């Protein structure tokens, strides 16, 4: 077989993912699912930091802040293999409505994330900006998961 370096990278990625999972796409689905679970933590701890959900999230202000930061960092790490698979291997597609919505939402996800981080770092934006952009990141992640992970589990069942 002809040597194709780019495909060697994709193959190495597939080999790595199939150490644990039955196929790279299964790994992608589970990483995305874990990221969505952490997004729920993100939203609830953010609400707690803004003085909401005190009865639901039994954390101190400092604890909520710490949980928010670490769940965000871990969620971001979990999305990296997913974005590699989606962006570098599968690419932007519009084969049907689900795939098209997924592709568009995926393109916006890191943009919304980057904007949110910038808003946190530079303390000069209106008060509504952070919850709006933070909410957009969580909503986009949820939409991405619904159009991929949830669809996949529905079609093929839950398994590794």
């Amino acid at each position: 077989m002809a040597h194709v370096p780019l495909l060697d990278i994709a193959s190495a990625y597939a080999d790595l993912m199939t150490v644990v999972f039955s196929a790279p796409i299964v790994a992608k689905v589970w990483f995305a699912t874990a990221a969505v679970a952490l997004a729920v933590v993100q939203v609830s701890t953010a609400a707690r930091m803004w003085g909401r959900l005190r009865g639901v999230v039994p954390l101190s202000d400092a604890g909520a802040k710490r949980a928010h930061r670490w769940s965000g960092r871990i969620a971001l790490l979990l999305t990296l293999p997913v974005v590699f698979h989606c962006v570098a291997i599968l690419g932007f597609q519009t084969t049907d409505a689900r795939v098209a919505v997924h592709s568009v939402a995926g393109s916006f996800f890191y943009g919304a994330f980057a904007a949110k981080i910038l808003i946190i770092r530079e303390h000069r934006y209106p008060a509504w900006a952070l919850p709006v952009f933070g909410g957009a990141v969580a909503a986009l992640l949820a939409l991405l998961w619904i159009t991929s992970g949830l669809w996949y589990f529905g079609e093929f069942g839950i398994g590794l």
Partner: protein
Amino acid sequence: MIGRPLALMLLVVLVVGGLAAWHPFSPSAAPVTAGASGDAARGATLFAASCAACHGADGGGGVGPDIAGVSAEAALAKIAAGGGAMPAGLVTGPEALDVAAFVDALDAAPVAATTAEPPPATTAEPPPATTVPAPTGPSEVSVKALADLGGLLRRGQSQVDVLVEHTGFLELALREDNVFNVRFHAEHLSNIVHGEPVRDLDTNGEASNPGDGVGLAGSEGGYVADAEPLFAEIAADPGVSTADRERADRSAATVRFAVDRLATLVERAERIAAVAAAADAADQIRLAGEAVADVVTAYEGMRASLRTYGLAA
């Protein structure tokens, strides 16, 4: 007011979207000519494990569409994109190239070269009938029973072959640690045996059956199960020779054995179709394989017995 965050967002969207449009590691992004970049022989094995269940062993279609005649480039694009119930990226990297090369080759050699498993030894000729007694005046009933048996077991042979083939697919899926295909092929084993109604054992939302729907031994009978009353008719015929009667009795017992082993197989398949991980199915797949081997042996015995009847026209 929030110009900088919006500008940054737009920039990142353009970068990510651009990368996604380029998707540099997609198998379809590589320069492909079938046979040059992909290994069709290796692709045959991958196709059997990941694609044949829907597209048929020869790509002629089934649950999924007929793909014989599809080019390597088009196959790669479809593998990468997915479509309908087929997820994108079922196989990736060099494996996708191999499958694409195999699909491309389907055009030229659509049948024999497409099955990854060699045909099982179920079609071996039985030993010659050297001790067949002369006919002793069978009734019309048993002559008809023999004719019916001949047709039944001939048609059933293809279903036994399908059963063996899919047992191979199941074992391959286990070796590849592919739980979805393990469950999928387990569903097929059960449905090949059970026939109609087709059951969705792997709960993927689609009940599928690579068999012809009659089944080998289901609730409505089947090619194996229906053989017993016919052998019993021959055994009960006062006109047949003692040797033929004894042979019919033994064949009826063989049928009962085969039906019992098929029931065991269905039980194993149901368990396999519900596993959470491929490795969890290892023991059940081994036992299912043993049951299939027993069925094949019994089936060979039944067909050999039929051929050696002095009654046979």
